[in-house]
């Protein structure tokens, strides 16, 4: 009887390991090629680690290419989008959580619909609208577009966090004479800090990854975000794999940092929602 649980345990751990290997291998390979010096790249094609590693590609990318500009642009766009969306979504999520009002049903329906229809439909009209306002080829334009795309989901996310906080708290404050907005700002918001962090993380990652609208709205290197810069780099210098992958590794850093920060709350938060729902 003892042998069977042991076998099951071993099979379980092996399966987990297989998943981890599948998840990490592409990223590992990215890093491997990024540190392989050019003269070894072809001669040691599929070795798992080069006989000599170097940071020359990172050095080149950081000092002699436009990538620091792309990196900065992406940070500005993603950071601003995350802040704008989190502020707007806290307000609207709070309204959905605490008020009953006419139009609530329509608001929720509208927000759900925006999650369903293909955003690629909007590529052409948004370009046409933003272009005369001077918002194409501008980081501000991207922030506006990304904020709108992310507000609906962020609203639902914030709403679920507000739902988890008892109403008595702000009612008590209001009996003591505070207005509801003051109660919201000074009592409820500090309690939802984990939710705010999760929302910031989600939106930052989404904006950092967005490609199609950035490709359409941005032309030229000055305002390019990281995806646009990397793709134009790939099509222009498609031979220098080491440099491209070094740039790829750099693009990975902020997204992974945010992920490691929020992944602990990921299943927890969803579980809380599922138990309630």
């Amino acid at each position: 009887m003892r042998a069977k649980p042991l076998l099951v345990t071993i099979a379980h751990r092996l399966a987990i390991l297989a998943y981890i290997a599948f998840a990490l291998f592409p990223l590992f390979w990215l890093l491997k090629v990024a540190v392989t010096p050019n003269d070894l790249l072809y001669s040691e094609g599929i070795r798992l680690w080069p006989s000599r590693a170097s940071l020359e590609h990172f050095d080149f990318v950081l000092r002699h290419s436009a990538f620091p500009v792309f990196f900065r642009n992406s940070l500005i766009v993603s950071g601003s989008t995350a802040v704008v969306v989190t502020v707007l979504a806290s307000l609207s999520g709070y309204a959905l959580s605490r008020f009953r009002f006419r139009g609530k049903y329509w608001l929720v329906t509208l927000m759900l619909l925006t999650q369903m229809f293909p955003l690629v439909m909007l590529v052409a009209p948004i370009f046409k609208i933003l272009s005369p306002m001077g918002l194409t080829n501008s980081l501000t334009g991207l922030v506006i577009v990304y904020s709108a795309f992310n507000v609906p989901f962020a609203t639902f996310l914030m709403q679920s966090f507000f739902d988890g906080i008892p109403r008595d708290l702000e009612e008590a404050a209001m009996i003591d004479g505070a207005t509801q907005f003051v109660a919201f700002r000074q009592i409820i918001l500090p309690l939802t800090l984990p939710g705010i962090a999760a929302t910031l993380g989600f939106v930052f990652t989404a904006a950092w990854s967005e490609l199609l609208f950035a490709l359409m709205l941005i032309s030229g290197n000055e305002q390019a975000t990281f995806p646009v810069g990397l793709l134009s780099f790939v099509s222009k210098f498609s031979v220098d794999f080491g440099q491209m992958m070094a740039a790829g590794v750099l693009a990975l850093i902020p997204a992974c940092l945010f992920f490691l920060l929020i992944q602990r709350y990921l299943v927890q938060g969803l579980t809380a929602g599922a138990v309630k729902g």
Partner: protein
Amino acid sequence: MEYTLRRKGLPAIRPPLMKRIADASAPYLYTAPALILIVTVMLVPLVLGVSYAFRDVQLLNPFSGAFIGLGHFRALAEDEAFFRSLRNTLWWTGASVLLQFTFGLILALLLDKPFRGRALAQALVFLPWAVPSFLAGLNWAWLFNPVVGPVPHWLYAIGIMSQPANILSDPQLAMWGPIVANIWWGIPFFAITLLAALQAIPRDLYEAASIDGAGPVQRFLSITLPFLAPTIAITILLRTVWISNFADLIVVMTGGGPADRTQIVASYIFTQAFKRLDFGYASAVALVLLALLLAYSLLIVILRQWLISKD
């Protein structure tokens, strides 16, 4: 919030008019900024896009813009590339959703019970989800590239390929490239959602079942699956719509090629707008896609009603 009425023992005092107006408008003030943003950046362009579908809108042609009625749709009816992209969309969506779900469910089951190092394992297997989609696409394109990537050499070594070649340039196999990348990228989403649902199943149910002598397979079929069913249904539905619109990986990895073999409708729309700058035609294709997605959603709703009424 009608907290004024809650003062016990005192007669309810009607608040002054200004206060009542402020109270009534409060929810709208809270939601207005988000609503305005959504309407101006999503709803207005959507309506405008629908109008483009019936107009000749080309970015580089200042004389375009005239109303042409159903002209785009007539062209569309004879557009071989469009119909190929429709078939490709079905194949791309079906294979991606099915495989993501299967591997995601297995992963969720593996992570359900506590074991040493679970937190670390969970963080590692969920990591692809944090990788920006364009980078996932590039990363896999490089892995499939025989010059720097190992995959063609492995396929060659185990005898699947006669020589280490790039599957992304093989018309018969090219679609597998974006699909594999999509599976890698999308497993965590399914695993996270299903894991959350799994953890919400009351543990004592399993204990009761095993006391009653139910084996693991029986417990899975009669407890786990029924509890997961609603989550599975809703995630697969939403994911199907989402993936059929998800063009990033294809745009990055193949650009729709070779010979349109990996072009899906969403990437076709993007190509028409971005490369050919034909906004009118792109919007017409987009309108057809929207109609198909609406039909799909409607079908699901009707199917659900029918299933409920049958019980």
